[in-house]
């Protein structure tokens, strides 16, 4: 983008635009924080390997589960309404670093192992349409 175009854009942008951007940014961040607070804690944990559900566990029962992923074992610990991956045979351990999850819709993904751990509510809320 050359200089004249840049300066003409800067000339067009009004103070009102800037205020609008700040307001919308604030609205987005505030609603993000507010919704995170009201978001329900989950009821169950679903463990998927390669897109197939292999286990569905109660989030309120403390236990450790070992699942065979694509390249090795992955250990999931459920404790006091939260779930986390405590060990995985994958190289980068991103799943372990993700930490604890407990709200509906949150998930831990281990890409090399093709394992997805996600929190579900009382009912499935899978979307059934894609917007065009």
């Amino acid at each position, binding site marked *: 983008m050359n200089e004249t175009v840049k300066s003409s854009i800067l000339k067009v942008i009004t103070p*009102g635009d800037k205020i609008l951007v700040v307001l919308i940014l604030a609205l987005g961040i505030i609603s993000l924080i507010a919704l995170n607070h009201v978001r329900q804690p989950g009821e169950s944990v679903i463990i998927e390997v390669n897109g197939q559900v292999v286990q569905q566990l109660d989030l309120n029962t403390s236990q450790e589960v070992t699942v065979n992923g694509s390249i090795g074992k992955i250990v999931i610990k459920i404790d006091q309404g939260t779930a986390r991956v405590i060990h995985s045979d994958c190289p980068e351990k991103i799943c372990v670093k993700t930490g604890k999850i407990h709200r509906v819709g949150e998930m831990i993904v281990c890409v090399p192992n093709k394992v997805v751990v996600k929190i579900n509510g009382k009912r499935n809320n899978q979307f059934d349409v894609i917007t065009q």
Partner: protein
Amino acid sequence: MENETINSMSSPNNKKYSLSNSKLVRLSLLIALGLILFLFESFIPRPLPWLKPGLAHIATLIAIIMMGMREAIIVVVIRVLVGSLLLGSLFNPAFVLSFGGGVTATLVMALTHRYFSRTFSIFGISILGAVVHNLTQLLLVQILIVHRIEIFYLAPFMILSSLFTGFIVGLLSFLLIQKIQLVSIPR
């Protein structure tokens, strides 16, 4: 010929809607532009199903700024109708979402341009349109399809992504209008 065009543009409150040849051609070009962008957009892969730049609104914005509110509504309605027909989604939920979001966003953008064009430039109008488009769609999804309040957890992400996509659409429209230069851009 030129006088006729200027007259028909400067008096949008005429009871009788006059469609001059030049207006018809410009409307058709804008509809075609919107359609191409609409179809192009539906073929590019998206990381998330709802994350879409809304490039088709470039045509709407140009219509609002260079022609008027009525023309913009015509452009968006025909674009959605023909676009959905071509994609095979006519009258299904996705069509209702495109239609509802598109028309509401166009109305808000056109009214903002009409009454607050001193306060907001094309960038502000575009961002406002993107936010309205996304939130309307979210509301429609909740009412028509999902019936679950949890869908609004997406709202913050949509609002924040609208800022970005709205700016991109505003920028592209701005550059295009400068290139076309049929009418100078009002601030």
